[in-house]
């Protein structure tokens, strides 16, 4: 057995494909299909992690090339640190989501659960393959496979919302692919080969490079869900089954980010500083608007999907800072910016995966995603609540969890921008980015206090919520696993940061700045800033001893804690309708940021798409009668007229038909002679 990293990768993809195939073959026995596709996912994920880890921990890039069936495109695989990071993130989340699916998909038994197993596994396999191919042709093929498989997951429920969301997704995904194709063809025109290696060798500069970058940026950006190409995301992701939403939000959008990095940095070398500024600006806008729109949602899964837009924005801010660092030959900035982006990419996959799985568990037990109909679940689903709380804290960047560490590095990268270089635009962009990140952080805290508070706290606001019980074991185990990872990635920052710096450095080839020492991390320069999450965690665990001692020491004649009765409502009996509601909770934001909310209406392309579609249909219906009257009807008239003239030949008299036969024979004989 081949046990090189690429060998493991092959095993991983083969396992996914086998799972997909088995799922189809077992369509009659759905329970078995669910089990097999889930187990295939778990094993495939494990194999994927085994493939990625050695490269991430300092192994050399692995290459594989074969001729392939097409003469114009070599089948080249390249497992470099960036690809390994992506494979790692994908495999990790797939492993957990597959575990979750073992119980969750039972909900879909009888509604084509086998098909879900098929599409999930194909979706994952194409993502993994996409990360390692090093040829534009195969890249596009796998990209399309991924889009198609995920499209079927989006429309799985077959209701009106899902189908229309799927349509919008389909449209925007393909608009993106067209741009990407155009970018690759421009490169192909110069290099004469579809191999990425030949693109790298071009060292393209000047306007053509910028055009290629812009095409790729917006093409992949559509996939990443950045503003203003985001509107499909909050509709498509929630429509899919929850473990698929987790994968789409946790992983698939990162493929858009991966594409931007691949083209902008790996293929083109990020040699122009306004590219980085553009990425940073779009990232900042996506972050603020994404979380602002998330706040206004009352559908839990849509809230999470909008927050994905936010987090993609944060990742892009890090990547943008890194690109600026590359363009201005500031290696430390480049490494720290990319490090922040990569770290947040991994972190977001973990906590957004957890939150979507949590939303899935709520949906599984209460059959609603409407937060106004939830409430009081913390006592009914304590494990789910605990895991969700950890996820909510991490996504709000609270120390010492993982979201905080990556945002801290993003802040530090932006700070370095502000303090170095002579370009005023760069010096200004850094602090502006920091302010945007600060607003984003505060809004995210509000958003996730709302998400947790309305779903899990207080009194149940519907019968379903009242009768909910804890999710089945595999689902709880999957969430617990991710919650532990959140803590580990946060507290273990001094171990994780150097790995991310290594990935960043593989794209830069400069002198690696040290980013961690002992239990502390720092952005290349310990004088600039220092952070020790292990120490933070230790102190946060140790300090509560003091107030606890105080409370125990001054006990006096205190009675034990008592919970009972309603909350106080100024002497009135408390009613459901009095408690916090989704709209009421965020009403101040709606007033204070009204212009930004109006922007959403303006930016929404789905309306424009709807309008243009309607116009096409209208035009077609109007055109149809014209076409009919002018062309089709004329032809029909003509044919009928000829038919009428020919009619006299057919009298229905048997003898005359015999005459025809004889005449024909004579004519033919005459011709022959």
């Amino acid at each position, binding site marked *: 057995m081949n046990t090189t990293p690429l060998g493991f990768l092959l095993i991983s993809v083969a396992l996914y494909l086998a799972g997909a195939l088995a799922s189809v073959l077992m369509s009659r026995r759905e329970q078995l299909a669910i089990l097999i596709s889930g187990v295939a996912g778990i094993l495939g994920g494990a194999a994927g992690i085994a493939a990625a880890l050695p490269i991430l921990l300092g192994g050399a890039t692995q290459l594989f090339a074969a001729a392939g069936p097409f003469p114009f495109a070599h089948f080249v695989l390249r497992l470099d640190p960036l690809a390994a990071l992506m494979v790692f993130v994908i495999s990790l989340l797939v492993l957990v989501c597959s575990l979750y699916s073992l119980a969750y998909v039972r909900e879909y038994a009888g509604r084509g659960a086998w098909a879900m197993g098929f599409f999930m596994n194909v979706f994952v396999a194409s993502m993994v393959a996409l990360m390692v191919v090093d040829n534009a042709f195969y890249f596009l093929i796998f990209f399309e496979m991924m889009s198609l498989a995920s499209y079927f997951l989006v429309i799985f429920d077959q209701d009106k919302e899902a189908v229309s969301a799927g349509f919008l997704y389909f449209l925007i995904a393909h608009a993106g692919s067209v741009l990407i194709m155009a970018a690759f063809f421009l490169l192909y025109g110069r290099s004469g080969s579809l191999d990425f290696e030949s693109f790298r060798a071009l060292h393209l500069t000047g306007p053509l490079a910028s055009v290629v970058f812009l095409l790729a940026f917006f093409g992949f950006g559509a996939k990443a869900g950045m503003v203003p190409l985001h509107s499909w995301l909050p509709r498509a992701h929630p429509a899919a089954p929850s473990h698929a939403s987790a994968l789409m939000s946790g992983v698939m959008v990162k493929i858009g980010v991966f594409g931007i990095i691949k083209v902008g940095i790996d293929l083109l070398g990020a040699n122009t500083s306004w590219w980085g500024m553009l990425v940073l600006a779009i990232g900042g806008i996506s972050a603020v608007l994404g979380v602002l729109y998330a706040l206004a949602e009352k559908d839990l899964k849509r809230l999470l999907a909008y927050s994905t837009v936010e987090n993609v924005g944060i990742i892009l801010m890090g990547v943008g800072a890194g690109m600026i660092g590359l363009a201005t030959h500031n290696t430390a900035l480049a490494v720290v910016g990319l490090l922040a982006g990569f770290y947040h990419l991994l972190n977001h996959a973990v906590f957004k995966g957890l939150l979507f799985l949590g939303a899935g568990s709520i949906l599984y037990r209460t059959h609603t995603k409407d937060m106004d109909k939830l409430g*009081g679940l913390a*006592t009914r689903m*304590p494990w789910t609540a*605990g895991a969700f*709380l950890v996820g909510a804290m991490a996504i709000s*960047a609270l*120390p010492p969890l993982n979201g905080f560490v990556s945002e*801290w590095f993003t*802040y530090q990268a932006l700070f370095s921008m*502000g*303090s170095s270089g002579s370009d005023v635009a760069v*010096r200004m962009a850094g*602090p502006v980015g*920091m*302010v945007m990140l*600060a*607003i984003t*952080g*505060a*809004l995210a*805290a*509000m958003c996730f*206090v*709302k998400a*947790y*508070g*309305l779903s*899990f*706290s*207080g009194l149940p606001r519907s019968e379903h919520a009242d009768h909910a019980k804890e999710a089945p074991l595999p689902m709880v185990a999957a969430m617990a696993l991710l919650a532990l990872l959140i803590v580990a990635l946060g507290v273990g920052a001094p171990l994780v940061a150097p790995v991310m710096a290594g990935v960043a450095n593989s794209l830069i080839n400069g002198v690696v700045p040290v980013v961690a020492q002992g*239990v502390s991390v720092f952005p290349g320069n310990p*004088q*600039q*800033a*220092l952070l*020790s999450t292990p120490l*933070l965690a230790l102190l*946060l665990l140790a300090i*509560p001893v*003091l*107030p606890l001692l*105080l*409370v125990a020491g*001054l*006990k*006096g004649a*205190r009675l*034990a*804690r*008592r919970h009972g*009765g*309603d*909350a*106080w*409502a100024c002497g009135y009996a408390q009613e459901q309708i009095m*408690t*916090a509601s989704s709209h*009421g909770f965020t009403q*101040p*934001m709606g007033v204070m940021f009204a212009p930004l909310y109006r922007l959403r209406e303006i930016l929404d392309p789905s309306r424009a798409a709807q309008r243009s579609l309607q116009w096409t249909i209208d035009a077609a219906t109007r055109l149809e009668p014209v076409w009919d009257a002018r062309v089709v009807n004329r032809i029909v008239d003509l044919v009928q007229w000829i038919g009428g003239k020919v009619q006299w030949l057919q009298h229905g008299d048997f003898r005359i038909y015999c005459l025809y036969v004889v005449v024909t024979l004579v004519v033919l004989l005459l011709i022959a002679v």
Partner: protein
Amino acid sequence: MPSFDMLFLAILQALVLLAIAPLMTGVSRMIRARMHSRRGPGVLQDYRDIIKLLKRQDVAPASAGFVFQVTPYVVISSMLLLAMALPVFTRHSPVGAIADLITFAYVFALARFFFALSGLDSGSSFAGIGASRELTMGVLVEPTMILSLVVVALVEGSTNLGSISASIAGGYLQAPMAILLALAAFAFSVFIEMGKLPFDMAEAEQELQEGPLTEYSGSSLAVLKLGLGLKKIVLAQFLIGVFLPFGILETLSGLSFLMAAVILPLKLLVIFVAAGLIENSMARGRFLLTSRVTWIGFGFAVLAFMFYLTGL
């Protein structure tokens, strides 16, 4: 890991700040009473309140859950953590690996997150609205706070509070206008964060039955009150430690303790008295229009940044 000396210093300053927290909030109460032409309670009243409350039973609604129970401890612990990391007795932070301005902002966010969530978790409608307002204030204040701190950090080339403090004490003159404007903006955001009128949200005695505090009672209320009082001290000391580190020695010695013992309470007192005076001469504004006022603070921060950029 910090050395043993430093750890000792850190714990000491956390305890000192915790111990004087009720005194300072008592001063605030006294000032308010005097300005209302009332006699009011003595300055030590908050100590008596807290000790009394500690002996009382915790009573909570049936709907209150796990978060409601842990919040008092999370709030006070995060504030103690910050108190450990602030430059108090010297110009350097005893625990440098935490004394980062971004870390500080997010530890405040940790306390705010739980405080607001406890409001929702209690199931009370008033606490729910209080939670919403608490978080809204966070959104409005955070940008000003970060930007004003970033400006000083940029001037001094480090986001470490200890380094900023040390270099500010060493030379104010590097970018005087920028630093002064940043000081104004930061003081503004500290004032809001201390929960003062007209932004009176967090510990709003008059409004909404004290926001998320509504359902707390007994020892939980005591711990939470202590935590919120400590938050005010930490904020004031944050302002003093970073922007006004004068009269404090560079390194640790017997003399530095002596000087700090005199100067520190004085400075805190000045801040609390000033805040009290401003607070009580203000009318209360409509909550939904608060954002118009906070723009002023943000404007100061932006101006500070512009001064920094142009090198004035």
